[in-house]
């Protein structure tokens, strides 16, 4: 089995079509992308005991007792900790195991990710069945979170090596899958839960088992679809750009441990962290914001504030808020492929220049759209902002490859993903803190978001200068040159056959 998974075993045979690698990467990213869609389980799980309605735990029950109690239901806030676990373990496992992924190859990483992510669903199913939330946290949160990190970085370096001419597009396709995973997983989970629901079960554990099996198979297919190119392989008709033509694309390679000692790594860490912090902040407040800023205008009652509406009208607004969030998720994944592909033409630094410069203007315009009461402008601004949030994720692997070379780009990307974990804390904390502060000062709910948008825009200004400061990595950081093996002649037996 170890040999079957090794990097040497998956060196592509002559004539291998490189367009087979992105679907393999997508199979893995579409599976792990369900992490974004886990909230679809919260409502059914919050009445797993009561079935028709939640059975609250006694008020005097301690926190740790609620984790093991089988007679009362979990709160949605308790279930929500799963997201924190996901993104903490995604970032940390990508950082810790990145070098191992580079050494062991993408197939080994993909298979381990499949066991972790699929297996995590099975452990979670047991946790739901026994009504032990700690088992869910351990299964999907910790073990599944490690699978997320491994799965996320597994195709990055491979895709960049297969598509040296279109690095951005190649990684953009895979990372688009991570954004799109919840679009498949959430409605699928909804269908499955309805199918499995009985008078004595909300159908969640059965759904977990089914989805765990589906994801395991899909990820194994993806992992076994991975191939790596031979040393020195390059696409037909493509020659690496001359150093004087592409000063921001290095011809050398920087070791992962050396990369973290360069200012470029930390500048890009902040570039990602600030772009994601601002984006996460916006995503978290998009739905409540549109409802509170426009209130009755959304349902044909201009002038009516949210608090003046009846419960049925508020429910209508909540539906519109959910529709808005859904629309944003489409723009989020579209931005991943569009911006990353675009970066192949204008360069990575210029792409982030656009993200930060245009982003600052757009974030600053959101309060204006609210003030003039233009729903169309408001929605348009958010949609463009979300494309740049997704684009930031998708373009960063190619930026790293340009700066540090392709040899350790997967491992370097893994370490950089700690910026995502940090942003996952920074963004929501910042937004919630500012919101509470504004409300405590007595501002009407419709206006509390204005300051938040300006603060998020200021994060982008800092990111703009971080990106501006990025310069090519000094040659002293490069690894010693290894002799590149020339491609074998036609008819010569390849050194390693692919499977």
């Amino acid at each position, binding site marked *: 089995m170890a040999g079957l998974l090794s990097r040497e075993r998956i060196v592509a045979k*002559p004539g291998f079509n*490189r367009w087979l690698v992105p679907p393999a990467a997508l199979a893995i990213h579409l599976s792990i992308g369900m992490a974004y869609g886990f909230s679809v389980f919260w409502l059914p799980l919050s009445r797993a005991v009561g079935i028709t309605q939640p059975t609250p735990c006694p008020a005097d029950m301690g926190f740790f007792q609620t984790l093991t109690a089988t007679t009362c239901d979990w709160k949605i806030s308790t279930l929500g900790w799963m997201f924190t676990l996901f993104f903490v373990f995604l970032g940390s496992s990508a950082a810790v195991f990145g070098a191992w992924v580079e050494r062991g190859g993408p197939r080994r990483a993909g298979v381990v990710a499949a066991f972790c992510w699929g297996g995590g669903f099975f452990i979670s199913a047991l946790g739901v069945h026994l009504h032990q939330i700690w088992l869910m946290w351990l299964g999907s949160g910790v073990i599944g979170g490690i699978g997320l990190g491994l799965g996320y970085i597994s195709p990055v370096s491979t895709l960049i090596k297969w598509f040296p001419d279109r690095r951005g597009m190649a990684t953009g396709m895979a990372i688009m899958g991570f954004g799109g995973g919840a*679009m498949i997983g959430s409605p699928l989970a909804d269908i499955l839960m309805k199918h499995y629901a009985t008078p004595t079960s909300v159908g969640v554990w059965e759904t977990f088992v089914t989805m765990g099996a589906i994801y395991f198979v899909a990820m194994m297919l993806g992992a076994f679809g991975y191939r790596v190119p031979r040393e020195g392989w*390059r696409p037909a008709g*493509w020659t690496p750009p001359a150093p004087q033509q592409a000063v921001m694309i290095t011809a050398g390679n920087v070791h992962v441990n050396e990369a973290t000692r360069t200012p470029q790594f930390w500048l890009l860490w902040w570039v990602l962290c600030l772009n994601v912090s601002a984006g996460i902040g916006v995503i978290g407040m998009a739905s409540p914001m549109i409802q509170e800023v426009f209130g009755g205008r959304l349902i044909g009652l201009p002038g009516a504030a949210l608090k003046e509406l009846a419960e049925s009208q508020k429910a209508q607004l909540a539906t519109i808020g959910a*529709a*808005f969030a*859904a629309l944003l998720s489409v723009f989020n994944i579209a931005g991943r492929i569009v911006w990353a592909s675009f970066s192949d033409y204008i360069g990575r630094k210029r792409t982030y220049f656009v993200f930060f410069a245009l982003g600052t203007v757009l974030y600053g315009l959101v309060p204006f759209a609210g003030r003039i009461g233009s729903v169309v402008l408001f929605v348009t601004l958010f949609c463009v902002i979300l494309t740049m949030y997704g684009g930031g994720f998708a373009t960063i692997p190619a930026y790293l490859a340009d700066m540090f070379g392709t040899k350790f780009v997967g491992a370097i990307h893994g370490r950089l993903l700690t910026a995502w974990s940090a942003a996952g804390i920074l963004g929501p904390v910042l937004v919630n803190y500012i919101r509470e502060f504004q409300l405590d000062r007595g501002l009407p709910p419709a206006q509390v978001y204005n300051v938040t948008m300006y603060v998020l825009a200021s994060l982008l200004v800092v990111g703009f200068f971080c990106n501006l400061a990025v310069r090519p990595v000094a040659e002293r950081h490069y690894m010693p040159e290894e002799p590149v093996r020339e491609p074998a002649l036609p008819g010569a037996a390849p050194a390693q056959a692919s499977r």
Partner: protein
Amino acid sequence: MTDDGSGEPKPGQWPLVIVAWILVGVPLLWGVMTTLRKAALLFK
């Protein structure tokens, strides 16, 4: 993409490429369509 350095893939692999893309593309399209249907409420 051959060892002769021409980088040309074998023509026989294109059907496999199409099948692979359909396998990942169809679920993704279904997910996007489902999401867009939900988002359409915003414009009603």
